[in-house]
């Protein structure tokens, strides 16, 4: 089951190896000892077995016996001669043996024995001639023989004695040598037994270890089997060739195969869908060839798999490889994610539906607000006109009420619209220089009257260093501050409202903290928690005037959040409350002073104005307002009519509604600018209720010059008209008179006129070239724009020069949409610049 096997801990492995080495060494040692002993014992046995000695003691004693037999015969009174000779010969033979035999060498080597042998043989050799003589001669010389034998007697006895002594010593030596060998043998045997015992011990230990390891392995295998058997995920194991070696019960359930049927089969054929087989085989081939693994060991992967019945279903799987003694194996864990995928799809569609519903709701609110606002604009506009008519005091009072209600309604609608925009993610904020001090000052000024009515003091100050210009969104910030300061003033009676601004510069991200503290009724904890939620209103029974939609603070929170800030409130019920706002503090350079800031009433000339507006009431209101200011108004009912009129007549100003039938305001503006008609360079002002930041940018790109937010108020209209009437200031943006005058002075009037004419044709050629439909080389655009920009600099056409430089840069970076926009812009700027140049 466990094909991988258990990796043994290193020390144990090491020990085992040493143990094995010891046993081998011990075994070799034992073998060596056995061999040595075998040789040694064999030698000793050989020595003992092949006796080099006859029974030497017997032989020596026999010398005495045989000598005595001879002597007996010699001393016999009537000796038997034959017998005598035979006994002599036998004795002689015996002595000869002692003299010659190798076994008596040891004896012969002793000086005493050697000397005796010499004496004995001298006597014997003296006896031999007598023995060998004839019988008579022998008989006669018998006494001599007896004398010789008497001399022999002590010698033979002494030789035997000394021989016995020598051989006793030799026997002793032999015994001790044998004893020594036996001792060695015993020692060697003991050592051998010890080695064998030790080897047995080692083997026993080894055996026990192997047994334990085997048992552990079995346990692990069993555990693995249980793990695989109970795994909720399918587990499939394959060898390096992709043949399935294991297929657990979960896998059986998922794939519908029985383990027995698929073991040994190619995994690709069993579970990989047909359309993925090629990729699978290529992957296996990659692994086999280069060991390159793209799925293996890369964590979870979502793929498709095939069931036994051929159905394809999504799986999530993780494959890992392992190296075993049988080579590399792959272990795949698979999970059937059909249900999960279905659930995800369900969730996605539910989310899409919810989003669609949300969008529908937002669109509905947006449309409704818009549709309500248009007639409301009509109402308010007409009230404004009505106020200019002769009214008795009663009527004026009623009209005032109507205007208050109308404005409140308008503000509610604006609030709802803001919330729908924010929630739809369409609330864009600007990042522009805002004079925060001036902004707060204006609001405080604005609210001072209301505060006075409530007998409340209202003041503001900087805590710490004063900042004026920061980057923020003026309108949003003003809205929020107005709301919170307004609330504080509204709820506080005979009290004190303080606005404090503080720059928190210590932190990594400097922040502007604004606190609005009042000592009004305060807010309960319960209310404090919910106060920024939608449609939360205070205690309306306190004062009916204080009521509202309950959207003010929720909008404030949305705006502040959109500006990257935070808003909160702390309060003690009955003692007042403190609202605080924290905003990112980014210092800004002051915005250029706006000419419109100073209103110079009645200093304007009468303008010829084109009013493009589809809504009749709005048109009438605007017309009335304009005519009352002394301007002449031409009306158009849609964009197309407006564009047609602008082509034919030159207007000083065009007021353009945005959403209109037939042709909308943006398209009409583009047409007016591009057609080069009589009013192609006239200022065009968008009049819209949907004045979002990004939309406003679009309007300007279309060639509009400004935006007037509906409902059009008399003041805003006056300010705009004043700025448009003051043409000199407007022209400054296009022509730097000083530059142009310098050039004129330097060149002289005639040359300047000629050069101007050439410059005009140069610019117009460029504009024609830019606006034809032929494809153009970007570098050519850049170089032409560069050349004309240089000329524009000489004539003081700063706006044109700036625009051409932008075009050059756009061409260099290859931004095609920017090139198209700037090409149009060049045309628009030129339409404004050209008349000024020819002045």
């Amino acid at each position, binding site marked *: 089951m466990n094909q991988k096997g258990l990796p043994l801990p290193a020390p144990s492995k090491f020990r085992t190896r040493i143990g094995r080495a010891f046993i081998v060494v011990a075994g070799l040692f034992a073998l060596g000892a056995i061999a040595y002993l075998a040789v040694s014992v064999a030698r000793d046995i*050989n020595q003992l*077995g*092949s*006796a*080099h*000695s*006859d*029974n030497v003691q017997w032989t020596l004693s026999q010398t005495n016996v*045989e000598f005595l*037999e001879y002597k007996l015969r010699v001393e016999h009174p009537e000796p038997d001669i034959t017998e005598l000779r*035979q*006994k002599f*010969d*036998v004795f*002689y*033979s015996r002595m*000869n*043996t002692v003299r*010659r*035999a*190798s*076994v008596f060498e040891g004896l012969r080597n002793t000086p005493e024995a050697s000397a005796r042998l010499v004496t004995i043989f001298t006597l014997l050799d003296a006896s031999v001639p007598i023995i060998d003589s004839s019988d008579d001669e022998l008989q006669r010389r018998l006494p001599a023989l007896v004398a010789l034998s008497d001399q022999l007697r002590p010698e033979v006895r002494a030789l035997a004695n000394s021989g016995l002594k020598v051989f006793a010593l030799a026997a002793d030596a032999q015994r001790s040598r044998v004893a020594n060998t036996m001792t060695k043998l015993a020692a060697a045997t003991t050592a051998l037994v010890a080695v064998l015992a030790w080897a047995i011990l080692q083997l026993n230990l080894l055996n026990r270890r192997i047994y334990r390891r085997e048992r552990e392995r079995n346990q692990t295998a069993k555990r693995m089997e249980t793990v695989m058997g109970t795994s909720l995920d399918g587990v499939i194991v394959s060898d390096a060739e992709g043949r399935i070696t294991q297929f657990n019960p979960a896998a059986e359930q998922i794939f519908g195969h029985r383990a027995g049927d698929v073991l040994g089969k190619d995994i690709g054929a069993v579970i990989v869908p047909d359309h993925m087989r090629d990729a699978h085989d290529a992957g296996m081939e990659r692994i086999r060839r280069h060991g390159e693994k793209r799925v293996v060991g890369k964590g979870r992967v979502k793929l498709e798999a095939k069931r036994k019945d051929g159905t394809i279903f999504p799986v999530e799987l993780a494959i890992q490889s392992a190296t075993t003694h049988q080579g590399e194996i792959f272990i795949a864990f698979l999970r059937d994610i059909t249900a999960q995928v279905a659930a995800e799809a369900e969730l996605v569609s539910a989310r899409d539906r919810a989003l669609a519903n949300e969008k529908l709701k937002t669109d509905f609110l947006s449309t409704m607000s818009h549709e309500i606002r248009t007639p409301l604009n009509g109402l308010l506009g007409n009230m404004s006109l009505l106020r200019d008519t002769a009214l008795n005091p009663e009527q004026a009072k009623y009209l005032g009420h109507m205007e208050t209600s109308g404005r409140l309604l308008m503000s509610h609608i604006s609030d709802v619209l803001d919330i729908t925009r924010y929630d739809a993610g369409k609330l864009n904020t600007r990042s522009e220089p805002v004079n925060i001090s001036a902004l707060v000052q204006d609001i405080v000024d604005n609210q001072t009257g209301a505060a006075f009515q409530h007998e409340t003091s209202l003041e503001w100050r900087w805590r710490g260093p004063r900042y004026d210009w920061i980057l923020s969104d003026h309108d949003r910030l003003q809205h929020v501050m107005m709301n919170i300061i307004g609330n504080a003033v509204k709820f506080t009676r005979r009290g004190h409202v303080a606005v404090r601004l503080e720059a928190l510069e210590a932190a990594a991200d400097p922040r502007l903290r604004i606190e609005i503290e009042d000592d009004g009724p305060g807010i309960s904890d319960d209310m404090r928690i919910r106060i920024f939620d939608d449609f939360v209103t205070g205690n309306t029974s306190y004062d009916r005037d204080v009521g509202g939609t309950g959207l003010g603070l929720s909008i404030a929170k949305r705006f502040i959040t959109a500006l990257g800030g935070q808003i909160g409130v702390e309060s003690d019920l009955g003692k007042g409350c403190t609202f605080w706002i924290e905003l990112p503090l980014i210092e800004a350079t002051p915005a250029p002073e706006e000419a419109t800031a100073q209103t110079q009433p009645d200093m304007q000339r009468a303008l010829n104005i084109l009013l493009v507006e589809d809504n009749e009431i709005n048109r009438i209101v605007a017309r009335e307002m304009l005519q009352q200011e002394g301007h002449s108004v031409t009306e158009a009912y849609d964009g197309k009519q407006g564009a047609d009129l602008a082509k034919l007549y030159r207007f000083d100003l065009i007021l353009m509604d945005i959403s209109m039938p037939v042709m909308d305001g943006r398209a009409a503006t583009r047409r007016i600018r591009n057609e080069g008609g009589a009013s192609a360079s006239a200022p065009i002002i968008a009049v819209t209720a949907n004045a979002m930041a990004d939309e406003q940018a679009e309007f300007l790109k279309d060639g509009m010059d400004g935006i007037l937010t509906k409902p059009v108020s008399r003041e805003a209209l006056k300010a705009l008209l004043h700025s448009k009437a003051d043409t000199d200031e407007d022209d400054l943006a296009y022509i730097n008179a000083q530059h142009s005058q310098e050039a004129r002075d330097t060149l002289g009037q005639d040359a300047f006129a000629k050069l101007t004419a050439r410059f005009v044709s140069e610019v117009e050629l460029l504009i024609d070239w830019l606006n034809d439909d032929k494809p153009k080389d970007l570098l050519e655009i850049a170089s032409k724009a560069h050349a004309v920009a240089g000329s524009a600099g000489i004539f003081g056409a700063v706006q044109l020069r700036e625009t051409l430089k932008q075009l050059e840069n756009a061409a260099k970076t290859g931004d095609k949409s920017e090139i198209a926009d700037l090409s149009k812009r060049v045309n628009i700027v030129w339409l404004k610049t050209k008349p000024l140049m020819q002045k």
Partner: protein
Amino acid sequence: MINRLWHITAVIAALVGFSTLAQANTMEAPSGAPILTITGDIGTTNMDDSLVLDREMLAAIDATTLQTSTIWTEGVQQFEGVSLHALVAFLNVESGTIRATAINDYTVEIPVTDAVEGGPIIAYLMDGQTMSIRDKGPLWVIYPYDSSSDYRSEVTYARSIWQLDRLEFVQ
């Protein structure tokens, strides 16, 4: 084992080759001086119940040459004599013990199983010379000591009887 094989071979040889000899129970009396008297359980006799042999008769039975050193002599000697194997075959003896006796009545027992081919001989010549009584003659039982360590044992040395003049075969 080898002895045993030789023994079996000897038995077969005796049964087949020497069956005629076994039946010829008598031999001529020796013409020369008797050198060896064989008695006991033998199939061939020439004097009463014994077989008396002179040097020529003995040499006629067999002449086996054997080269070996002995512990009683110096260097390697060449012995010539009747191999015991040939003798027992000649006497048609298959088993038992040979009681060998020397001139001085020294007696040893040699088992018939020692009488194998390549085994002991009863030497009558040493280095081509007859041996006198002074020189362990006239007959000397010599084993091929050099051919096998089996022959270099005390038992064998004891059986190597010299100045031999009588043999008695007993069961």
